[in-house]
């Protein structure tokens, strides 16, 4: 099976080595002509050439031409990372009728020219890596990509605007979509806002119709108050287990009349409503907000008398009557889904302002976060859209502090991208609703979106005050009679070079965006990676911004990094298109880097059986050998590493290939 004679019909192999300049990216550091000369001296190399951009059309044509002309049977391309152009050159090989796996990519850009100071060192390193690959490729086998049928259907995780938009795009294209949301309603952060920048259109007016369409769409199943607990399988063939948490109101039976809420023994809402960030109250049986989707109430067992004492007159049950929708015995339910692709759209969390005690959040009652003020401004929020101080009076002056928890070495270094803009939005709304003087404290104003700078201009004209400087402290320590019973913002105004004290009635902290608190667990669940700061990592920051390193799993929205709504929606559309491109294929080709077991060498020790993370290897009692169930193998190679006799091997990473590569990297001419 192995050995380099397998595909050359007894003739000595003929290797072609093609070295890319990548403009000056490689050639500016590595002496490419010298490397070409060197490559020509390597065993079995029939031709070695260089070109400015090997991945360009003329570069590819040159390789194809030379494959024919020199009768090449192996191909080496020394250029960028295999993560970028391995596929490109495999295609070139196949188009010139060499099996695409008789090819090896040598990464002399990311691993050599870009990281080495000295040109001579870089040249030597490039030579060693080419020598290694030229040895390795001798042991490559002809392989066929594995082909599997693609299952229809997509799971979208997270029902914010990202998940909602992606779900609708795909459902309209005829795809079956399961939208999994862990809260009782879909909508995400956007459902909490009153207006959205920069157009100031009402968030509910643009979001609620979309939420309703999701609920009514024949191709969408909303699994609310649910979480994904297990993901297995691979691209095109995922198995996803979802846990539906009990809401104690049976979704299928509920007609959304809310008579149960009316009939609750608590005549008035008494408990803090989570959706209102505790600013409003709810009953033990409640809907989080009037436009919730699904419009099904739920019971909070922590506060419900029936759950706590078992002795409630159960007004809700009576009110529901024959519909029989209340079920105090509801349990977790596990739903198993089989789908072709997954979109992760789990959004963000806001920075916890109490981490910066000098801004007084949690200490002074009239210090709010931006998100809380969104709720206060919301017409269907806890105050019906009126912004009042805790003592019930209208604020005369308001200070809005930008960049709280962002752009700071001690908290988060990134710019949260939306805080400047939502601060401007809140400034406008506060002025409009309360007539207060509004002061914005900013470091820089970042308004780079379409219509954003214009919105900033508009605010300047509306007479909102802008003070440039990082706020040092918010306190209630009065130095003048004017400051009595107010909050004093102490700031160095960097435009006039002076420390100022601005007394206000209310402080709004424009808290930044952070990854969800459980981001790490979510990455483990879906086998994706996190980039710095725990935002989910895209496959390529520019060329594959919605893909992940796990084929078939895509990202949408703020889970990948801070984003406003327009960018979130654009990205969700992109993710939907990528998934559709996947699920509309009837078969998917998977890298053939699976294991194989050479029965001749297998002693039946079964070490591999226990080690395989996917139970893809079983023991054949009759033949007394280990057997691989190939579709289950995802190609980690742990069996190949563990096999004492070398019987278990991994395609593309066979013992011979790795030994040859290591040896080539270390010993030999040059």
């Amino acid at each position, binding site marked *: 099976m192995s050995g380099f004679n397998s595909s050359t019909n007894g003739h000595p192999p003929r290797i072609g080595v093609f070295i890319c300049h990548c403009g000056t990216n490689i050639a500016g550091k590595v002496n490419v002509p010298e490397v070409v000369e060197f490559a020509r001296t390597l065993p079995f190399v029939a031709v070695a050439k260089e070109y400015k951009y090997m991945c360009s059309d003329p570069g590819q044509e040159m390789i194809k031409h030379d494959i024919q002309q020199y009768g090449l049977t192996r191909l080496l391309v020394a250029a960028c990372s295999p993560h970028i152009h391995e596929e490109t050159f495999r295609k070139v090989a196949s188009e010139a009728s060499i099996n695409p796996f008789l090819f090896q990519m040598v990464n002399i850009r990311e691993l050599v020219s870009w990281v080495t100071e000295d040109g001579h060192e870089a040249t030597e390193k490039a030579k060693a890596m080419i020598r290694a690959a030229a*040895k390795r490729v001798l042991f490559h086998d002809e392989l066929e990509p594995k082909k599997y049928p693609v299952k229809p259907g997509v799971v979208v995780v997270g029902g914010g605007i990202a998940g909602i938009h992606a779900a609708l795009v795909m459902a309209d294209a005829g795809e079956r979509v399961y939208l999994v949301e862990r809260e009782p309603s879909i909508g995400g952060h956007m459902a909490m806002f009153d207006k959205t920048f920069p157009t100031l259109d009402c968030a509910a007016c643009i979001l609620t119709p979309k939420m309703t369409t999701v609920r009514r769409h024949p191709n969408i199943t909303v699994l609310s108050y649910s979480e994904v607990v297990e993901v297995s399988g691979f691209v095109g063939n995922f198995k996803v287990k979802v846990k539906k948490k009990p809401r104690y109101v049976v979704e299928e039976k509920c007609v959304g009349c809310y008579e149960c809420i009316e009939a609750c023994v608590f005549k008035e809402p008494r408990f803090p409503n989570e959706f209102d960030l505790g600013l409003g109250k709810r009953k033990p049986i409640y809907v989080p907000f009037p436009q919730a989707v699904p419009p099904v109430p739920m019971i909070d067992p922590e506060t419900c008398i029936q759950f706590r004492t078992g002795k409630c007159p159960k007004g809700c049950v009576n009110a529901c009557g024959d519909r029989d929708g209340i079920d105090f015995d509801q349990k977790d339910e596990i739903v198993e889904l089989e789908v072709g692709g997954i979109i992760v759209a789990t959004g963000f969390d806001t920075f916890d302002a109490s981490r910066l005690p000098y801004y007084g959040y949690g200490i002074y009652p009239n210090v709010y976060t931006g998100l809380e003020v969104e709720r206060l401004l919301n017409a269907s929020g806890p105050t019906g859209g009126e912004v009042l101080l805790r003592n019930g009076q209208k604020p005369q002056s308001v200070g809005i502090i930008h960049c709280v928890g962002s752009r700071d070495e001690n908290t988060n270094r990134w710019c949260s991208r939306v805080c400047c803009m939502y601060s401007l939005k809140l400034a406008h709304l506060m002025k409009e609703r309360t007539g207060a003087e509004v002061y914005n404290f900013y470091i820089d104003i970042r308004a780079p979106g379409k219509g954003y700078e214009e919105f900033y201009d508009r605010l300047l004209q509306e007479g909102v005050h802008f003070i440039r400087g990082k706020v040092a402290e918010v306190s209630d320590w009065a130095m003048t009679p004017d400051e009595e019973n107010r909050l004093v913002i102490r700031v160095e105004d960097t435009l006039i070079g002076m420390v100022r004290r601005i007394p206000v009635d209310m402080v709004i902290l424009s808290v930044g965006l952070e990854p969800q608190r459980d981001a790490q667990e979510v990455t*483990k669940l879906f086998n994706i990676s996190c980039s710095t700061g725990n935002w989910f990592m895209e496959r390529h920051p520019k060329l594959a911004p919605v893909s992940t390193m796990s084929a078939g799993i895509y990202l949408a929205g703020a889970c990948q990094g801070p984003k406003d709504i327009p960018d979130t929606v654009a990205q969700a559309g992109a993710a939907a298109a990528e998934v559709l491109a996947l699920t509309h294929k009837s078969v998917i080709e998977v890298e053939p880097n699976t294991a194989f077991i050479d029965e001749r060498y297998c002693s039946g020790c079964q070490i591999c059986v226990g080690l395989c*993370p996917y139970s893809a290897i079983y023991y054949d009692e009759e033949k007394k050998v280990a057997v691989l169930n190939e579709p289950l193998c995802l190609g*980690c190679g742990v069996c190949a590493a563990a096999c004492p006799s070398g019987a278990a091997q991994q395609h593309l990473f066979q013992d011979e290939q790795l030994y040859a590569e290591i040896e080539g990297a270390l010993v030999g001419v040059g």
Partner: protein
Amino acid sequence: MDEQFEPKLIGILCNWCSYMAADLVGTSRIRYAPNIRIIRVMCSGRIESQLILWAFRSGADGVLIGGCNPGDCHYQEGNYKALRRVTLLKQMLPQFGIEPERLRLDWICASCAEEMRKTVEGFTAQIRNLGPLRLQTPPLLKPIKIEMEVSRHVEA
């Protein structure tokens, strides 16, 4: 003055985290010592002791193994398997006359460019101080099957 000893190092990195980090060091144009030759495998769990010994036998003065952080392995727990193997092998290395410090295992996340640089720089400096590896008994642990192939075709 003697010319400074420049060690030869092999880095075997897993495709999903440590190799991605190595790529990222490149994209970020961060420089590091040129001594390391990087080999890509899908998972650090693919790396067996024989492969490491083979690297030493082929002239490596040090071997760096890179995997994903605990819990982040793309294949559940290949990195734990690598850890177990490396821990055991380190105990055996002195028998071959190889200082255990010549073998290093590190978890490097896909976005940890700076950590990658530090690891490579640190390891290179460490092995430079340690001096060249002089093998007393070359560990001959390569499966026979391969010995035959390699000698028959390549070294001929």
